[in-house]
C-alpha cells in the first residue's frame, strides 16, 4: 500500500472507527511515516473543527417566541376543520359501538345459518342462512341482509333531533320472525342500541347538507388516522335534494378492508342517515 491508499483509509478511520486488520495497518504505517502522521493530525483537527464549528455556528439559534402557540393554534384549527360540516363526523364511540354490534350481528347470522342447516330448515330462516354463508366471502351488505340488520337502514330524517323519530324506525322495520326468536330479540336490541347511538350522534351534530357536497366513508378500523387521505379518494357519497346519498362504493373499500383482520366499514348514508351498514369481511 502506498501513502495515498493509507490516506484514504485515514479518512475512513475518521468517519467510521476502523477495526481489525485495517486499523492495525494504519496504526503501523503512522508509526513509521511522518508525512502521513502529519496528514492524520491535520485531518483529525479538521474534523474536530467542523464538529465544534458547525455546532457553535447554530448554538444561539432558537425558535422564535410564540412558535408553540402558533403550532397549537394551527393544530386546533386543523382538527376543528376536519370535524367541520364537510365531514360526516361521528363520535368515535358511536362508530366503535356500531361496529361491535354489526360484528355481533354477523356472528348471530352465522349461527342462524348453522341452525337452519342443522335443524333441517324448519324455520323460514333457511334462506337467510344461505345468504349468511355466502356473506363470508362476499360483501357484507348480504350479511347485513341475512342477519336482518336492515333495520339500521331506517328512515332517520337528516339532522333530526327528535328522539321519538330516531327510535321508531328500528321498531317499524323489525323483522317479526326475529322478534319472536329469543336470539333475534337479543340481536334486535343490539341493533336498536346501535341505531339509537348513531341517531343520537346525528342529532348532536346535524348535517347541513347542500347539493354538491361530498361526504365520506368512515372506516372505524382506521378512523381517524387514515381517514382523510382515504376519503379524499372516495367521493361516493353525494348530496341530492338536501340529503346524503350513496352513489357507489369505492373500488378499494373491500380490498382495503380485507387486509384488516376484524374489519367493519360503516358506510354512512345519511339520506335517511341510515347508514347502510356495509359489513366487509
Amino acid at each position, binding site marked *: 500500500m502506498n501513502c495515498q491508499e493509507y490516506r484514504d483509509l485515514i*479518512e*475512513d478511520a475518521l*468517519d*467510521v472507527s476502523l477495526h481489525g486488520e485495517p486499523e492495525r495497518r494504519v496504526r503501523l504505517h503512522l508509526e513509521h511515516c511522518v508525512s502521513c502522521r502529519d*496528514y492524520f493530525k*491535520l*485531518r483529525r*483537527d*479538521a474534523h*474536530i*473543527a*467542523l*464538529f*465544534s*464549528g*458547525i*455546532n*457553535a*455556528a*447554530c*448554538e444561539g*439559534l*432558537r*425558535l*422564535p417566541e410564540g*412558535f*408553540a402557540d*402558533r*403550532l*397549537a393554534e*394551527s*393544530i*386546533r384549527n*386543523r*382538527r376543528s376543520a376536519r370535524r367541520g360540516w364537510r365531514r360526516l363526523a361521528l363520535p368515535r364511540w358511536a362508530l366503535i359501538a356500531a361496529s361491535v354490534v354489526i360484528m355481533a350481528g354477523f356472528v348471530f347470522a352465522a349461527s342462524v345459518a348453522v341452525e337452519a342447516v342443522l335443524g333441517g330448515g324448519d324455520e323460514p330462516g333457511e334462506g337467510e342462512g344461505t345468504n349468511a354463508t355466502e356473506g363470508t366471502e362476499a360483501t357484507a351488505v348480504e350479511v347485513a341482509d341475512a342477519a336482518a340488520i336492515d333495520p339500521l337502514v331506517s328512515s332517520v330524517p337528516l339532522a333530526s333531533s327528535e328522539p321519538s323519530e330516531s327510535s321508531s324506525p328500528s321498531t317499524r322495520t323489525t323483522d317479526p320472525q326475529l322478534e319472536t326468536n329469543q336470539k333475534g330479540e337479543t340481536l334486535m336490541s343490539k341493533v336498536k342500541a346501535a341505531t339509537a347511538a348513531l341517531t343520537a350522534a346525528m342529532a348532536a351534530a346535524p348535517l347541513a347538507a347542500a347539493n354538491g357536497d361530498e361526504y365520506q366513508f368512515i372506516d372505524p378500523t382506521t378512523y381517524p*388516522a387514515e381517514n382523510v387521505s382515504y376519503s379524499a379518494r372516495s367521493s361516493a357519497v353525494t348530496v341530492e335534494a338536501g340529503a346524503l346519498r350513496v352513489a357507489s362504493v369505492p373500488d378499494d373499500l373491500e380490498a382495503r378492508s380485507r387486509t384488516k383482520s376484524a374489519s367493519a366499514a360503516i358506510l354512512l348514508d345519511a339520506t335517511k342517515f341510515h347508514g347502510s351498514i356495509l359489513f366487509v369481511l
Partner: protein
Amino acid sequence: MEVWEQIPLDAEAGARKLVAEYGDRLFRAAVLLCRDEHLAEDLVFRTFERVVDRIGQYDPRLPFWNWLYTILLNFFRMDMRKRKAFVAEDAALADEDLETSGDDVAGRLSKMDAAAIRSAVERLSPPFRETVVLRYFEDKTLQEMASLMSVPVGTVKWRLHQARRDLERTLAQLFKEKEV
C-alpha cells in the same frame, strides 16, 4: 409521559411538548439545511404538524428523533425539488474549481469563526449539506446517515468526501478574503 404518548391524548399539549423538547434542535438542523431562518421555521412548523397528524404511524421501538428528522428531511427535499435546485446546485458545485487546496485549510479550520463555517455549510449543495449536517451536527454514523437519507453507505461516503472538499475550499476562500 413521552411526547408520542401524549399527542394522541391531547394534540395541543403534545405539540407544545414537541416544541419544548425538540424544537430548537430541529430548528438548528433546519437552518443549516435551508440557510434561512424563516424557511427553517416554516420547515419545523410543517414537520411538527405532520408529526401530530401521523403520530399513529410512529413505531416507539425506533428513535423518535430519527423519525422527526426523516420527516424534516423529506419536507426539505420536497421544497428543494419544487425549486428545482437539488440537482442543478449539485452539478454546479461539483464543477466549481477553487484554487486553494483543501489540505492547506484543514489546519487553519479551528481558527475560523463559527459564522464562516456556517456560511461555508450554507454554500454547499443541498445533498452535501444534508450529509454534513447529519455527520457534524447530528453526529450520525455512516450507517445511520445512509438509513436517514435513504441512500447506500457508499453514496454517503462519497458525498461526505465531496462535501468536505467543497467545505474546505470555501473556507479557504473565505479565509483568504478575510486576510485580504
